[in-house]
């Protein structure tokens, strides 16, 4: 253990700790800006500077090693002046139009400027005006708000390993962008939005769909239907001050109804459908020498990744659409018929933890009979903004979860199964699938349906399940870097039957549309574990926990034929195709 003193407080930390870690242990809050644990530890912003007695220069606490006997000062005059000066310099190059910024009141730069009591800027220089890149359907980049903390690069390059953005030029001309200033739309960005989640300012944010949804809601002839992903209900509460990992299904549904949506459905139902379709697909491929391993296709970020970076594996992808796309198709046919509404007047909105789904819905193949499956995607964050715009009092929303209550999902789809709920976490699709496939093959109803091998934070988890026809060997993968590793394993001859892939590390609960957790909070708690616990809690709380026991599912397949049949294919399946990693022609 290393013993040192921070602002007079004695603290002991394990060898290899940084001064920042020691400070936090000593309950001394050194401000940071570019630091993000595990993502970006480069000591670049010079805000976390501290003074070590006897040192010539100030050190960046986030990377400086804690040494035995060090005397550290985090608020000496020298430190205060340097920190303030550096922040003033950053602000002098920043687009300070906070009032109209998407991160107003939720911005790490604002927070530090407020804490350091910045009153006026001593220097005004001529700022470089950057063009905003808003050509991508999912993500908008605004370099005018960028403070060059490099967190997005850390995420894209080192965590996701897609590396579509990097620093360009040098010195004062440095900026972050795609090669040749291409738009994110032209380069193979997978739209996972992890960059948005780590950006401290408003330099990265999702493409707005709020306006089109308000428009639809205001239109009297439009029947606006909304569906909600499993991951949204365990995170939405964070936007209203609730602890991370609070389940708020009731409030979410109630709020949506009060916002004016005609019907509120649960995407978990479509998740149950996915299990039926994909389970059938798996058994079919196993029995009939189909392409194995079967890859899940519910993550549009993952699908775009595969299409762009490893198109040779497209035959392994399930032909299923993602759950919300299936649901959109179902709503505009099955539901439209049952409700007696012209599908052309139905507007489907999906509330998702995901930024890639904004891209997904406008893919040409995501439509049936000329009608888009889904018309708009709201991220969890966007829904929260709409709730605030409508001045709904969050605390007065109901959360009783009674099936007759206003806070319950609407019919005809009713309540989905717990298997559908766990889609929101990495390993959930697999566990849900195993619950059904195992019983389908054994013909017996199992008592223990928690396949804990599929749970947990690891980017690659492998499992084996002994079944009558087959010893199923599978894996659960989250994050595109791990996807690459898994594909390498397959190339090297390792054999699997079924692999679940999610584009975002940790799965949908950590998606690019979820509430942003600032660097300090993210370092102090395990966001994944908290949200995952909530999702497994939802699963446990539901009466039906197997997709094939969802009463609606049984009814559905009585009416449209068997899973994987013609009608099912028409509504629920699609085809995927190779995309260019680097375009042949670039409009430079």
């Amino acid at each position: 253990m290393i013993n040192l003193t921070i602002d007079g407080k004695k603290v002991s930390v394990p060898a290899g700790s940084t001064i920042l870690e020691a400070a936090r242990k000593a309950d001394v809050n050194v401000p940071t800006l570019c630091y993000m644990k595990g993502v970006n530890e480069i000591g670049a912003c010079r805000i976390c500077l501290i003074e070590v007695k006897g040192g010539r220069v100030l050190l960046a606490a986030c990377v400086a090693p804690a040494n035995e006997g060090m005397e550290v000062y985090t608020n000496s005059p020298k430190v205060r002046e340097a920190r303030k000066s550096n922040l003033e310099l950053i602000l002098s190059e920043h687009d300070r139009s906070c009032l109209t910024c998407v991160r107003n009141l939720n911005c790490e730069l604002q927070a530090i400027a407020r804490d350091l009591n910045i009153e006026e800027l001593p220097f005004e220089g001529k700022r470089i005006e950057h063009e905003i890149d808003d050509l991508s359907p999912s993500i908008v980049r605004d370099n005018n708000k960028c403070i060059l903390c490099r967190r997005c690069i850390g995420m894209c390059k080192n965590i996701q390993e897609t590396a579509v953005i990097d620093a360009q030029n040098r010195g004062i001309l440095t900026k972050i962008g795609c090669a040749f200033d291409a738009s994110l739309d032209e380069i193979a960005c997978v739209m996972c939005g992890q960059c948005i989640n780590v950006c401290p300012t408003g330099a990265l944010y999702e493409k707005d769909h709020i306006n089109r949804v308000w428009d639809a809601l205001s239109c009297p002839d439009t029947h606006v239907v909304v569906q909600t992903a499993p991951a949204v209900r365990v995170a939405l509460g964070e936007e209203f001050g609730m602890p991370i990992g609070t389940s708020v299904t009731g409030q979410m549904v109630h709020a949506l109804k009060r916002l004016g949506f005609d019907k509120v459905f649960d995407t978990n139902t479509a998740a149950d459908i996915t299990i039926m379709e994909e389970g059938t697909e798996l058994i079919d491929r196993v029995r009939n020498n189909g392409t194995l391993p079967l890859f899940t296709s519910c993550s549009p970020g993952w699908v775009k990744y595969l299409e762009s970076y490893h198109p040779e594996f497209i035959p392994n992808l399930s032909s299923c659409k993602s759950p919300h796309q299936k649901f959109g198709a179902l709503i505009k046919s099955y539901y439209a018929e049952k409700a007696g509404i012209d599908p052309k007047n139905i507007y489907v909105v999906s509330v998702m933890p995901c930024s890639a789904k904004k891209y997904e819905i406008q893919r040409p193949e995501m439509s049936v009979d000329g009608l888009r499956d889904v018309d708009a995607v709201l991220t969890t964050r966007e829904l929260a903004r709409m709730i605030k715009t409508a001045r709904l009092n969050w605390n007065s929303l109901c959360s009783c979860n009674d099936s007759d209550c206003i806070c319950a999902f609407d019919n005809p789809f009713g309540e989905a199964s717990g298997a559908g709920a766990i889609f929101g976490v990495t390993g959930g699709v697999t566990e849900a699938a195993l619950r059904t496939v195992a019983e389908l093959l054994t013909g017996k109803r199992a008592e223990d349906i928690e396949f804990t091998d599929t749970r947990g934070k690891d980017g690659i988890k492998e499992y084996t399940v002994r079944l009558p026809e087959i010893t199923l060997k599978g894996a659960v993968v989250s994050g595109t870097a791990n996807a690459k590793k898994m594909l390498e394993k397959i190339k090297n001859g390792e054999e699997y039957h079924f692999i679940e892939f999610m584009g975002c590390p940790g799965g949908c609960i950590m998606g690019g549309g979820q509430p942003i957790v600032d660097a300090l909070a993210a370092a102090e708690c395990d966001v994944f574990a908290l949200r995952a616990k909530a999702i497994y809690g939802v699963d446990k709380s539901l009466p039906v926990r197997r997709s094939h026991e969802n009463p609606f599912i049984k009814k559905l397949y009585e009416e449209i034929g068997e899973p994987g049949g013609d009608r099912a294919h028409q509504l629920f399946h699609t085809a995927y195709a190779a995309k260019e990693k680097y375009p042949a022609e670039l409009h430079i």
Partner: protein
Amino acid sequence: MKTIADLQAIRDKIKTRILMRKEHGYKHEGPASETHFRSHVMVCAGTGCVAGSSEFIISKFNEEVAKHGLQDDIMVVRTGCFGLCALGPIVIVYPEGVFYSMVTVDDVPEIVTEHLKNGNIVKRLIYAETLCKDEHILPLDEVGFYKKQMRLALRNCGLIDPECIDEYIANDGYVALEKCLTEKKPSDVIDIVKASGLRGRGGAGFPTGLKWEFAAKSQSDDGQKFVACNADEGDPGAFMDRSVLEGDPHVIIESMAIAAYAIGGNHGYVYVRAEYPIALNRLQKAIDDARAYGLLGKNILGTGFDFDMEIRPGAGAFVCGEETALIRSIEGNRGEPRPRPPFPAVKGIFGKPTVLNNVETYANIPQIILNGAEWFQGIGTEKSKGTKVFAVGGKINNVGLVEVPMGITLREVIYEIGGGIPKGKEFKAAQTGGPSGGCIPAQHLDAGIDFESLTALGSMMGSGGLIVMDEDNCMVDIAKFFLEFTVDESCGKCPPCRIGTKRMYEILERITEGKGEKDDIEKLEALAKSIQTSALCALGQTAPNPVLSTIKYFRDEYEAHVCDKKCPAGACQAMAKYGITAEKCKGCTLCVKACPVGAITGERKAVHVLDAEKCIKCGACVPACPFKAIYK
């Protein structure tokens, strides 16, 4: 492959060739033969002289010598920098030691016929100071330029052909390596370097032996350790390292091998800036020749020691002279520094312990091994041992490369070695340390030059650039020049340097344009101090130095700019006021034509008028006037 005995045989064979050039007036006894020539014609082929066509001069000499059938008697040798660049291209003929200066291709036939064939020195070309009244030739080490120099790092420059490995070997080349490999343990080598007191010559002055010791003691996960040479030499006005690489590339190879042996490494990298094509080629040839002789590769000199090295090119980034940025560049990245610790000696290239030293630092190693630590301790000052190579430029007569013992005064360097300020102008300041350094004004001319004294004066040793400025240079403008350089070369990672230097530059720009504001000087000082303490790397931490040091010694000049909107030196164009002296004007209209904005009007034979409002102060009119009627 050469054995130790083979190398000694080469030495024995070629020794007299070297002696002829080293010992003034040495005469070879015996007839001319394959290895012994009557005369050596040494032609400087450093970049400066090559720019002045020394390669053509060499070809012409070969041609003329052959024409006169003298090819067995006369050896024409391409050699490294003699240092007196102001007088380039330089040709020195031995055994007489005649120093011909500013030689052109057209002069060559005369030199060959008159001097080499007929024995008559061509007086009109000789460096005046070496020609005594009684016609005898002064040995070079007695002329003002060379007298106080001590050429240790530059010992082979101008003495040997850098493209001939045998000549390097002949002048005790690779003896130090042999001694280390056969007689000393790695820890012995480190002890010698430590005891010598050698400090890094790249600018920081870190004790070299200590650095090697850290690397030797560091663990490597797979046993690999590296040695690297920083030949990025980005300081504008500095060409010391370039001269060593061009004039004596083998010294780097030998030193790096010694360093590798000392720390337990087997591979080396030389990071050479792309702007040095001649140095790159000469070093590559030296590496190839060393490999052919088995001095690089496996089982060097039969001792079981393996070592090889390769050149890594830079691509135009000053910041890559910073050690962690250099490492990032070698690894194939943007050359962005990273915070230290960990230091490269512990975690360097590819995460392995690495010794990274400057070219000049390496150039000192073999002699320290051969002559011993005590010998080196006997040169220089208490805390700064040995010599330092300086590239002296700017407003000085003897522009060029000099090597002096630490402790020599600035006055001696500028006036005795440098020959003083041209055109009778007054010395104003000398800049050391390039964009990281500061200026030293006249009142400190008698300061002894060493690491500590320069830092105490508000400058730093730096890599060795020494730019002399006279009364016509504006110190505010000079500060702006250096800051402009830093703004352009900043890597951009940390706000203090990326944004801070730019904000400082904007203030300086305003000041030199006559738009200075009341608190500008205080603002500059405050921002400078903040950047010095917060920047991530030494580039940023030292970027404010030129500004702070010029404010320190020339505050009145700053105040004249800010308060009076005047530039005392008359250098800042924006504040210049041009006008026409009516009495001198002959009405020739040449200035009217020269003016790009039509600010001068006037008919032929009539006195011209300059409209100050329209004048953009480009100064084009001044040289256009044959009567010097335009004043500033």
